[in-house]
């Protein structure tokens, strides 16, 4: 009976919504990067599946409806970039240089390290998009022949590490320029970093947000050549 019940699409969907809401609630209570709604909700879902012995396929029947919203959510990034048009126009040269350098350095350093560790082509393809926003990264990973699940994990680890560490990076490098700081945060640790950048200042926040979108686009173009 349990199997029949959980194979209904409504089960997986409802589990996703409940787990996500718990994640968001916890985040608003503990404002700490590791208490991330995605990680908390994923842990809840996995725990429920394991404890009740529910096959992943059953969960996916409903969860795939949630995944369908990935494309519109990615497209919606255009709106957040459009809202920053004034800041983009004002800092157009640093933005283009920063995002191009950032994306290229990220892709090249990941590819080289994967080669150095002798990782398979599949894993390399999964890791290459890990510095950009999950929306673009998971699609790009699939296109490159990677495993989107591993990409999502890599993006999350990168974002959490970056969000925790970026204020220290700024201090250690004596970076006194908020344009440079914002772009560096956005290019290296995407939207999770941006949430930290917003706390650092308005300029940091908006430039970080711009870098997230632009680096995502540039990385997709760069990956055509590897």
């Amino acid at each position: 009976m349990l199997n029949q019940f959980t194979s209904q699409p409504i089960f997986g969907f409802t589990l996703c919504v409940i787990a996500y809401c718990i994640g968001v609630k916890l985040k608003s209570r503990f404002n700490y990067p590791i208490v991330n709604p995605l990680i908390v909700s994923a842990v809840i879902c996995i725990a429920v599946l394991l404890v009740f012995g529910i096959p992943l396929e059953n969960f996916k029947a409903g969860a795939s409806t949630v995944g369908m919203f990935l494309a519109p959510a990615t497209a919606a990034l255009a709106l957040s970039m459009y809202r920053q048009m004034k800041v983009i126009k004002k800092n157009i040269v640093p933005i283009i240089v920063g995002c191009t350098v950032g994306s290229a350095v990220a892709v090249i350093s990941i590819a080289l390290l994967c080669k150095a560790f002798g990782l398979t082509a599949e894993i390399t393809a999964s890791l290459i998009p890990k510095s950009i926003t999950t929306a673009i990264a998971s699609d790009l990973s699939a296109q490159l022949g990677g495993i989107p699940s591993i990409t999502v994990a890599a993006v999350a680890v990168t974002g959490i590490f970056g969000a925790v560490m970026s204020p220290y990076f700024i201090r250690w490098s004596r970076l006194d320029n908020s344009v440079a700081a914002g772009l560096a945060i956005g290019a290296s640790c995407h939207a999770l970093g941006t949430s930290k950048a917003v706390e650092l200042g308005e300029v940091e926040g908006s430039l970080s947000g711009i870098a997230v979108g632009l680096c995502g686009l540039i990385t997709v173009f760069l990956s055509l050549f590897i």
Partner: protein
Amino acid sequence: MKIFGQIIRLFTLCCIGDLISLMLPFPFPGSVIALVLLFLLLISGLIKTEQINTVSDFLLKNMSFVFLPSTVSIISYIDVFKSIIWQFLFICIITTVITFFATAYAVKFTIYLMNKFRKESKDA
């Protein structure tokens, strides 16, 4: 009806993005094509912010919700994951540091050059 209108605009763009993606001779995510199309439509004024903002802002605010299924699916790759966990963490951390500093210094240097150039053209 307002929400339906917004969903139609946003989702139709995604469908067009997927169609273009299928026609391209190289792999390029349809969602990213939709992003570029929407950006161009916003700049040109063919779509106004108010015509997509409610649905877009909901998606932007709850972005991580749509990644939940692929994050949970990681349990089917647990063996692959276990075999590379240390390399995985090392690569994630080191490349984040490298990317941060490369971007920061590239931007700082660009701004320095721009200021210098401006000063010189003023002096001349």
